[in-house]
């Protein structure tokens, strides 16, 4: 089934077009890499899918509907910024998330907490950047959400945390779950992707199956990325 369908999707902030005429279809169960440098429209696209902002033109459908209250229950969005209350203990953030989202699975939460090597008693403000990134991700993955949107989950994160995050994403993989990951770091994580979408200045200029692109060009996604954005 189609999970995301964007038709001529555009978003303007003031006089700047953050997204221009994006056409994209994403099927269920795919892990999609949304690739591009800063300012290419990756976050804007994810925010539109999450229902946090609205299109200036064109249309986007998530699970067959326009993003809104109904889709938000099935979509987990992890922003790049820190959105957690700093005074909370790790354990509290799980309860908080469970209170917000009916699909939060506490057993899964415990499992992921252990896997992410996080101390339930620690205060959020005492966590390192990598630990906070792991916590944010874990809170989203413990939901039963059909669509998971991760905005730059690897950015500014030390390699061990990055590895954990990658493994966490794989651990939470389900056939009925679609994951879209925006990143400007491609090399270490490209094995995660079924599909890649290259954005530049708000436009999609290359999209396809990662394995097909490798076979056609005899290059890694990282190499293609570096060439395209040179």
């Amino acid at each position, binding site marked *: 089934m189609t999970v995301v369908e964007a038709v001529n999707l555009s978003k303007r902030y003031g006089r700047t077009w953050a997204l221009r005429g994006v056409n994209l279809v994403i099927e269920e169960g795919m892990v999609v890499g949304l690739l591009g440098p800063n300012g290419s429209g990756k976050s804007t696209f994810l925010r539109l899918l999450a229902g946090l902002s609205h299109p200036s033109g064109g249309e986007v459908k998530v699970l067959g509907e326009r993003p809104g209250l109904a889709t938000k229950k099935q979509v987990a969005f992890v922003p790049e910024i820190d959105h957690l209350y700093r005074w909370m203990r790790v354990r509290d953030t799980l309860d908080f998330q469970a209170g917000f989202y009916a699909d939060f699975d506490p057993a899964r939460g415990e499992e992921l907490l252990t896997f992410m090597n996080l101390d339930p008693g620690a205060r959020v403000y005492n966590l390192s950047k990598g630990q906070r990134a792991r916590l944010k991700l874990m809170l989203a993955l413990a939901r039963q959400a059909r669509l998971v949107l991760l905005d730059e989950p690897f950015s500014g994160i030390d390699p061990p945390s990055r590895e954990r995050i990658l493994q966490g994403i794989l*651990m939470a993989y389900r056939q009925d779950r679609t994951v879209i990951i925006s990143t400007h770091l491609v090399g270490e994580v490209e*094995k995660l992707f079924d599909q890649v979408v290259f954005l530049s200045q708000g436009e999609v200029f290359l999209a396809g199956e990662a394995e097909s692109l490798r076979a056609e060009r005899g290059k890694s996604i990282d190499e293609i990325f570096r060439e395209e954005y040179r």
Partner: protein
Amino acid sequence: MPHFDESRPIYLQIVDWICRRVARGELAPGARLPSLRDLAQELAVNPNTVQHAYQELERQGIAFTKRGQGTFISESPDPVGSLRQRLAEQAAEAYLKEIANLGLSFREGLDLLAEKIKERGVSN
């Protein structure tokens, strides 16, 4: 664990890796392959990639899937023998290609090989 060259499709490299393990006897005929999820995590690749690799192994008759039970290495026709043969042929091709790249004749390549074998004192 294999080291992937990301400029080639990952699933084909998983296929090669499993074939090599079968040829070396590390995976016996009838052996059960790890679940998609387990192997995906071990190799840090997408589970769909592992599935693609398993499908390719099935297509080549090297593995088969029992519904609900997993994917297994075939017991017949002798996958070990045929894979050994296939991998040996690939190695031979690679050697000949390298010899040609170096501007040597195949005759010279063959002589060099014979010499190396003699050095090792192997008679058969």
